[in-house]
């Protein structure tokens, strides 16, 4: 039998970031991951650490959300200094293009909302886009340009957090499957794993698409949408993109990484499809025509997830002690701040960040079906 202050389930961005901040705060941490680190959703993440690009259309830009993203960006900068190169952290800015008047109108509204929240972004036209990114074609009529947006190599971040956590005493165990939570009354006290029980004062569920099943073992229902996403990478090419354009970026190694498709309702979540591939290739080459001559090197796929209202689920569910949830679509952007928030909650029972809107209890009971549903989620 193992005991720990914190047992984290899930070896992706959120799990390893939490392990890092918790270990740094002196907590005894055990992290269990069913497969290999970054083998789930983190492995199909694009890597944007963005204040301006959203995966869903928010009518209004919520200040609390922007504040969390800003705090996370600052933590990445700090982590880059502490953890070094593997993060590949770079802040070249982002361009989120719009292709028709209707989109542009919504984009303008979003840009204003972001500016109101203190994000130094601009709503720009094609001529301005061209000045920043000459490779972009005129199919982009307008864009939101956010000069402080950053990107990272998600898998590098996971490994860097895991390494640092381990150096500070965290135990990180891969190939260990968490099957259910152990509860005593209204309190979670541990996890049953494929290699025995682990008892802990706090259990953090950060296993992405695996969270609903795990939480359900103590009667907590987490409503998630799931879809398959495909990512793509090209050969290394000479410098072409400085910023990242929506979900297209040039890595420090020189490769172009882009994605992701959204394919709901598929059975094999790690297989790629020819339709998804062609659709994505058509889009990238219409937006960045110079990519036509570039060789595609690899594609890969995995499950991507989104709480059904688009916003994260962070912290303790009502009515149960010893359990923390960390489930969100934009895990790359938010991992450091979520890791530090959970650490604060574990140590002090409170956080200086406003996570009120991100409680699980915001969902009505009918949303809390306790199982992941697979549907299309919009852009």
């Amino acid at each position, binding site marked *: 039998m193992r005991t720990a202050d914190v047992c984290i389930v899930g070896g992706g961005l959120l799990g390893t970031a939490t392990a890092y901040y918790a270990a740094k705060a002196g907590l005894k941490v055990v992290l269990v991951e069913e497969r290999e680190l970054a083998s789930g959703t983190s492995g199909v993440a694009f890597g944007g650490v963005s204040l301006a690009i959203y995966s869903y259309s928010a009518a209004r830009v919520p200040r609390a959300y922007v504040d969390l993203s800003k705090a996370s960006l600052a933590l990445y900068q700090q982590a880059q200094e502490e953890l070094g190169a593997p993060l590949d952290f770079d802040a070249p800015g982002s361009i989120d293009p719009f292709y028709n008047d209707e989109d542009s109108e919504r984009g303008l509204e979003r840009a204003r909302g972001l500016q109101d929240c203190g994000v130094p972004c601009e709503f720009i036209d094609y001529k301005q886009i061209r000045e920043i990114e000459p490779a972009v074609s005129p199919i982009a009529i307008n864009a939101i340009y956010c000069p402080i947006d950053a990107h990272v190599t998600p898998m590098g971040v996971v490994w860097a957090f895991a390494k640092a956590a381990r150096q500070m005493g965290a135990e990180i165990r891969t190939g260990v499957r968490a099957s259910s939570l152990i509860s005593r009354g209204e309190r979670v006290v541990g996890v049953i794993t494929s290699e025995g029980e682990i008892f802990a004062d706090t259990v953090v569920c950060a296993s992405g698409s695996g969270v609903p099943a795990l939480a359900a073992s103590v009667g907590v229902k987490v409503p998630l949408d799931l879809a398959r996403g495909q990512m793509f990478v090209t050969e*290394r*090419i000479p410098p072409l993109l400085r910023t990242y354009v929506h979900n297209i970026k040039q890595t420090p190694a020189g490769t172009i990484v882009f994605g992701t498709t959204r394919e709901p309702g598929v059975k094999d979540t790690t297989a790629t499809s020819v339709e998804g591939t062609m659709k994505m290739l058509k889009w990238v080459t219409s937006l960045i025509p110079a990519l036509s001559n570039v060789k595609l090197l690899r594609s890969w796929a995995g499950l991507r997830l989104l709480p059904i209202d688009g916003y994260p689920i962070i912290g303790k569910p009502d009515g149960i002690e010893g359990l923390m949830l960390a489930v969100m679509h934009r895990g790359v952007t938010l991992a450091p701040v979520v890791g530090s928030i959970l650490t604060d909650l574990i140590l002090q029972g409170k956080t200086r960040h406003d996570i009120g809107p991100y409680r699980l209890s915001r969902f009505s009971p009918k949303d809390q079906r306790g199982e992941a549903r697979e549907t299309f989620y919009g852009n």
Partner: protein
Amino acid sequence: MAIEQASDDGLRSAGIGRGTAISIFVDGKEIQAFEGETVLAVLWANGRHTLHTTARSHEPRGFFCGIGVCFDCLITVDGIVNLRACVEPVRQGMEITSQRDPGYAHAS
């Protein structure tokens, strides 16, 4: 139209009939080649054994597997980077550049 060709740089095997003589350009210099040859064969026979230098440490590289697997005989042809010399046939007038591999812009 086979031409009996004496070896140049001694690496073209002597006594072999080769295809029609054509010209290719390697780093701006005109070089004779024969139809049916690969770019690798022409470069190697002409003593150009450093086909590219690597992106990170700028090491010289030649060819390694020679059968299209290793992607270590990279060259630029008519502006397109990262082509394999070992499987690329020669064409009249093609322009070959021995490339410094793209990437790792931040590397020292």
